[in-house]
C-alpha cells in the first residue's frame, strides 16, 4: 500500500444502457509497468481514459496519490497520454510539438530547448526538431508522441495501444525501447493492448479484462502459468480448454481419461474447465502416451511445429520441436503440473469467430468455367 499511486474504486461506466465497466477495482503502484489487456470492447481503453480524465465514471471514485480526482480536468492531472493514433499537432513542427506542454507550463525558453533536445535523443530522433510531423513515418510519429508526453516528466504515462499501427518488426523494436525508456525515466506506465505477447514482454503487472470486468491481475508468469479461468487461459496464449470433472482432490477426469493433478478444494464430481498448454504436451510413442491420437495437421512455426492431434474425445493443439507427419499415430503425455483446473464461469459471449469444428460447409462448386 505504501507506494500505491492510483486507485480505481468501484468504477462503473455505462453508455446508453450498455455497461462498459462493471464496477472495477484496481490499484496501480508507483513506477510499475501495468498493462490492461483484453479484446476490443473489453473496457481497457475506457479505464485508461478515466485515469487520464477524459471520461468520468458513472459511479465510483478515482484516487491519485490518495486524493480523489474524479472532478479534476485532464489538464490539471500529472498524467500524460500517448494516443493510439499519435494525435500530433499537424500545424507545428517536431520541436513545437514536443515543447507544447513545457510552453504551457511556462518553462523558460532555454530550459525548453535543452529538454526537448534531450528527449528527442532519448527517443532516438536527435536533430528532428525542424521537421514537419507530417513528413515522418509511423514509427517516428509514434516516438514524437512519446517524447511529447515524457518531456513533461509526468508521474504516470498512459499509452493507448501505441504500437497498433506499426509493422511487426518495428513493433518488436519499439516494445524493447518503450520498456527501456520506462526504466530510464522511472515513472509509472499504464499500457493498453490487445496483444498478449506485448503484455507479457513489457509488463510488471497485467490486468486481463473482458466485457467490462477484470478477469485476473498478476505478473506475466502468474497470468500465463496460473490463469484463473478459461477466458484468461485462452486469451493469454494458445490453450487446449476442455470440460472435465474433479473426481476428488488431486484427481480429474477429462478427454475420457483420469489424471493426477495438483488441485484440490473442489466438491466431488464438480464440473471444471481443464486447460493444457500446447507446449506442455510431450510427444511419445503411441504405447507410452497417456493419450493416443492421429496427427491431423502440421504447421511449421519457426521455433517449433504446431500440430493438431485428434484423440477420440478432443483435438489437441500440440507444440513441439519434433516433427510428426500428418496421419501418423502418436502418444501424448503430460505431468500433473501441466494440468490447470479452473472453476466453471459463465462463458462470456464470444464475438462471432470461426470455430474450426463446426465448419461443415461444402464448396460453392468446382472450378469449371474456362479462362
Amino acid at each position, binding site marked *: 500500500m505504501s507506494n500505491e499511486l492510483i486507485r480505481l474504486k468501484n468504477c462503473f461506466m455505462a453508455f446508453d444502457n450498455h455497461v462498459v465497466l462493471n464496477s472495477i477495482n484496481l490499484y496501480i503502484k508507483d513506477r510499475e509497468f501495468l498493462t490492461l489487456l483484453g479484446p476490443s470492447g473489453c473496457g481497457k481503453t475506457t479505464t485508461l481514459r478515466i485515469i*487520464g*480524465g*477524459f471520461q468520468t465514471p458513472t459511479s465510483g471514485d478515482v484516487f491519485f496519490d490518495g486524493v480523489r480526482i474524479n472532478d479534476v*480536468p*485532464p*489538464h*490539471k492531472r500529472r*498524467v*500524460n*497520454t500517448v*494516443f*493510439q*493514433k499519435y*494525435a*500530433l*499537432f*499537424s*500545424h507545428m513542427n517536431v520541436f513545437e510539438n514536443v515543447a*507544447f*506542454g513545457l510552453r*504551457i*507550463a511556462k518553462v523558460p525558453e532555454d530550459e525548453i530547448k535543452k529538454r526537448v533536445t534531450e528527449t528527442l535523443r532519448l527517443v532516438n530522433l536527435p536533430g528532428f526538431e525542424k521537421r514537419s510531423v507530417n513528413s515522418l513515418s509511423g514509427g517516428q510519429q509514434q516516438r514524437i508522441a512519446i517524447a*511529447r*508526453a515524457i518531456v*513533461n516528466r509526468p508521474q504516470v504515462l498512459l499509452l493507448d495501444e501505441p504500437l497498433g499501427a506499426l509493422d511487426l518488426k518495428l513493433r518488436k523494436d519499439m516494445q524493447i525501447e518503450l520498456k527501456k525508456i520506462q526504466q530510464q525515466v522511472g515513472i509509472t506506465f499504464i499500457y493498453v493492448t490487445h496483444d498478449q505477447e506485448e503484455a507479457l514482454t513489457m509488463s510488471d503487472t497485467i490486468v486481463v479484462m473482458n466485457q467490462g470486468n477484470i478477469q485476473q491481475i498478476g505478473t506475466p508468469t502468474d497470468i500465463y502459468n496460473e490463469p484463473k479461468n478459461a477466458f484468461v487461459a485462452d486469451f493469454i496464449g494458445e490453450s487446449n480448454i476442455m470440460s472435465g470433472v474433479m473426481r476428488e482432490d488431486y484427481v480429474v477426469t477429462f478427454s475420457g481419461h483420469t489424471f493426477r493433478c495438483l488441485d484440490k478444494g473442489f466438491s466431488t464430481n464438480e464440473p471444471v474447465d481443464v486447460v493444457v498448454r500446447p507446449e506442455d504436451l510431450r510427444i511419445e510413442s503411441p504405447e507410452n502416451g497417456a493419450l493416443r491420437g492421429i496427427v491431423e495437421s502440421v504447421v511449421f512455426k519457426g521455433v517449433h511445429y504446431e500440430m493438431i492431434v485428434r484423440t477420440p474425445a478432443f483435438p489437441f493443439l500440440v507444440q513441439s520441436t519434433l516433427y510428426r507427419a500428418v496421419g501418423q499415430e502418436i502418444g501424448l503425455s503430460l505431468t500433473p503440473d501441466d494440468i490447470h483446473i479452473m472453476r466453471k464461469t459463465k462463458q462470456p459471449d464470444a464475438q462471432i469467430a470461426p470455430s474450426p469444428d463446426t465448419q461443415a460447409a461444402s464448396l460453392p462448386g468446382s472450378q469449371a468455367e474456362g479462362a
Partner: protein
Amino acid sequence: MHKKALAVPYIVWMAIFVVAPLILVVIYAFTSKAGAFTLENFSGMLQYAGIFGNSFLLAFFATLICLVIGYPLAYVLARESATVRKIAMIFIMLPMWMNFLLRTYAWMSILEDTGLFNRLLSFLGLPTVHLINTNAAVVIGMVYNFLPFMILPIFSVIEKIDRSTIEAAQDLGANGMVVFRRVIFPLSLPGVLSGITMVFIPAVSTFVISKLLGGGMTWLLGDLIENQFLGNVYNPHLGSAISLVMMVIVMVCMAVMNRFGEGEEGAVVL
C-alpha cells in the same frame, strides 16, 4: 489512357465556355462605345473613389461581423451531436431557400423607424434608433444574407479536427482557452480564410441590399455597376472597367490575407 484523350478536348471546351465571357469583359473595358481601343473607361475611375472606399469599408465590416458571429456558432455546432448539427444546419440554410429580395425586404420592415426592432426597444423602455437608410442597415443586411457562407466552411473544418488532437492538448496542460488559441484556431484557419472570401466578394458587389436597406443614400459599387448595365446610364464599357478594377482589388486583398494566414499562427486579420 484513352479516357484521358477523351477528357482533354472536353476540358478545353469547358475552359472556352468559362473564359470567353471573361475575355469579352476585358475587351469591353478597354474599348469605347464605338469599339475602338481606349483607356478612357479607366481614366475617369478616380471620380468613383468614394464609392470604392465605401463599398470596401462596408464589406469589410460585414465580413468582420460575420466572422465574429459565425465562428463561435460554427465552433459550438461542430461539437454538438449529429442531430443538433443537422437541425442547426437546416436553420442556417433556411433563409437561403427564400428569395433574396424577399428576405432583404423583411429586414427593411424590421429596421424601419417604426419597425419591429424599434418597437422592441420601446417595449423594453429603451430609446429608439434610426437605422433604415443608413450604412448600419446595409451592413446588417449583408450579414444576414452572407452569414451562412461564413459558418459553413468554418464548421466543416472544425468538424474534421480530430477529437484526440484536442484531448492531447488538454492532456499536456492546456485549459479550454489555450486549447482553442494554440490548437483549434490555427487548425481552423483554412475554413476562416475561405469563409472570409465567400462573404467579402459578394458583399463588395451587392446592389439590392443597399437599394432596399440603404435607401439609395450611399451608392455602393454594385449600384454603380448595375446602373451601367440595367439603369438609365447604360454604359457597359464603363461598367466592365469598374468591375475589373474591383476584381483586381478584391484579389489583392485576398492574396494578402492568404499570405498572412500561411504565416505565424494568429497573425490572421483577427
